[in-house]
């Protein structure tokens, strides 16, 4: 690793600190401005004032706001995140540790589907520009782009699990199997392989299909368009003409020479879309009862579980920051002109 690359990485890592700080500060105050509080959500409306105050005191919510704020920041610095305020008051790290793998297991195939569908059909459309297949691909990309994720999920559920019962409706694996399935890493795919439980693996994979395709398709629309536009521009560039004059086959000019040169904008968008992917995961997880971080966040917002929401958002932010840093480093490997 060159010294300049190291400096670049360190700068970027340092820059994420104010970013996360601003984000969690906003969340901290917004959550407390919202009507409702964790006490009421836990104890219900008919509880006595003494009982409510007792819980408030136990959770530390009776302390002045600034004390709570700095206390929370200190928790963040020590990477502790504290404990949840509701639903058993468990340490948040434990709760996220169980749910994060579920979300990652969903988003990795989703992003793979997005990239494969988006890049390949975009490139294919560009190569066959203004032919019928180009118009079909463009139309499909607009459709994929404009349908809300949860709606697409519902349609898929109706089509492929109710009308045509191919894939399971929801969840991560068959409920009956769950009782005997021991999860160590919380990545069910990895767990099943480690236990050499092939039946379980099959069930896990089948459960993954609909949610990951939904999420992947929804995001692919914008990639199709981006790839297509950049490819068209690339295909008209001088070095492609020069390659053609050298007798290189069109296929090679398109998929080898042009496509590789369009990876930079694609990668940039992939990094940016990662944030949208997590937001999409929230909706997809809700639609498919997927026990991941997205659904956890929705639940805890409804319960006004301040600490759980703050911690989850912070983790999301760190994830997005890490991915965009990774993308920036990857640029240099794709394009030799980029040096840090």
């Amino acid at each position, binding site marked *: 690793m060159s010294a300049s690359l190291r400096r670049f990485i360190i700068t970027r890592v340092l820059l994420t600190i104010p970013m996360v700080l601003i984000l969690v500060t906003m969340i901290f105050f917004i959550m407390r401005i919202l009507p409702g509080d964790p006490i009421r959500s836990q104890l219900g409306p008919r509880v006595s004032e003494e009982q409510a105050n007792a819980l408030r005191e136990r959770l530390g919510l009776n302390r002045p706001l600034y004390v709570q704020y700095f206390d929370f920041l200190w928790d963040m610095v020590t990477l502790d995140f504290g404990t949840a305020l509701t639903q058993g008051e468990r340490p948040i790290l434990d709760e996220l540790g169980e749910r994060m793998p579920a979300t990652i297991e969903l988003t990795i195939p989703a992003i793979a589907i997005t990239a494969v569908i988006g890049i390949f059909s975009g490139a294919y459309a560009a190569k066959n520009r203004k032919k019928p297949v180009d118009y079909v691909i463009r139309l499909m990309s607009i459709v994929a782009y404009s349908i809300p994720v949860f709606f697409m999920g519902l349609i898929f559920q109706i089509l492929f699990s109710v009308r045509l019962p191919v894939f399971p409706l929801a969840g991560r694996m068959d409920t009956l199997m769950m009782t005997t399935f021991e999860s160590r890493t919380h990545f069910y795919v990895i767990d099943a392989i480690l236990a050499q439980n092939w039946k379980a693996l099959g069930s896990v994979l089948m459960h993954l299909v609909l949610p990951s395709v939904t999420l992947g398709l929804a995001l692919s629309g914008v990639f199709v368009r981006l790839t297509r536009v950049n490819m068209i521009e690339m295909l008209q*560039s*001088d*070095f492609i*003409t*020069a*390659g*053609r*004059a*050298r*007798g*290189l*086959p069109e296929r*090679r000019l398109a998929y080898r*020479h042009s496509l*590789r*040169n369009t990876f930079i904008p694609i990668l940039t968008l992939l990094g940016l879309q990662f944030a949208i992917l997590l937001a999409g995961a929230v909706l997809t997880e809700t639609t498919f009862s997927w026990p991941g971080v997205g659904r956890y966040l929705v639940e805890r917002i409804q319960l006004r579980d301040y600490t759980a929401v703050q911690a989850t958002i912070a983790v999301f932010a760190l994830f997005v920051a890490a991915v965009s840093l990774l993308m920036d480093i990857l640029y240099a490997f*794709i*394009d*030799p*002109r980029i040096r840090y």
Partner: protein
Amino acid sequence: MAEKEVLMQIKDLSVTYETRLGPVSAVEGVSFDILKGEILGLVGESGCGKSTMGKALMRMIQPPGRISSGKLIFDGEDIMTYDENQMRDFRGRKISMIFQDPMTSLNPVQRVDEHLVEAIQVHEPKTKPSDALGRSNTLMERLGIQKQRMKNYPHQLSGGMRQRVMIGLGLVLNANLIVADEATTSLDVIVEAKLVDQLKEIRDEFGVTLLVITHNIALVAEISDRVAVMYAGHLVELGTVEKIFDNPLHPYTYGLLSSVPNIKLDEREELYKMGGEPPNLTHPPKGCRFHPRCPKAMPICETIEPQFQEVARGRFVKCWLYENHPDKTTKKIEVAA
């Protein structure tokens, strides 16, 4: 000049672009021969169709343009009858092209040697990668690119070096004809001069034929054996460089040569400026396309197009001054109904 064999015959070549304003004939009825081992300079103003012609020789005209008529006979075969696959094999192996901008003519994410090896392997799939690499390195060494530079990416090379890489790409498959389309235009004068010398050396060393397309008259004078002058899609004059420069026959050639600054020019004497502008090719002038700007225009020039014909040995011109026509003598021509 000793009689030379013909490498490529261009017969009645026309290239038409379909535009919203109607068809534009960027090249019309052009015929000439390219001789083996010569350097032929093709000059003309911007938009006269010289680049289109260069591309047409390789059948690389992209829609909405197309070669609307003509024969391209290379080594006795009409390449207009080739299918796409034959054509792909032909490009690079028989004719290759060097482009104006060496900055953008190489793939930015491909190393120099990868360019060369790829070209070899596409055309000669049986060549081993190590042999292809060896051949590339040897060739480029001869062109003055050291071996360690071969691992560089295009952006790490200077403009002159990149253009030498382009030349190398043209030579690596032993192409017979290299079309250099404004190949030196984007280089500064010193690098340009070196490249010109190098092009001459290459011709002598590799026995290739060069078609140098340029708007730069001085370059043509320096490099070419023969010169072809284009105007508004027509070839108007063709001859050896000495003859053309000593005694330009076509009024356009004359004007073109007179508008080049000369160090011996008297201070009070103003540089010749040709009147008017090149015609809009959606509606080219009737008759000779040059007549609205021609100081020697005659009535016949406005109505009937002159033939491109040999007026002396190896000397072709498309002008009524050198052609006889029954109507030519009449001062005023009645347009036939």
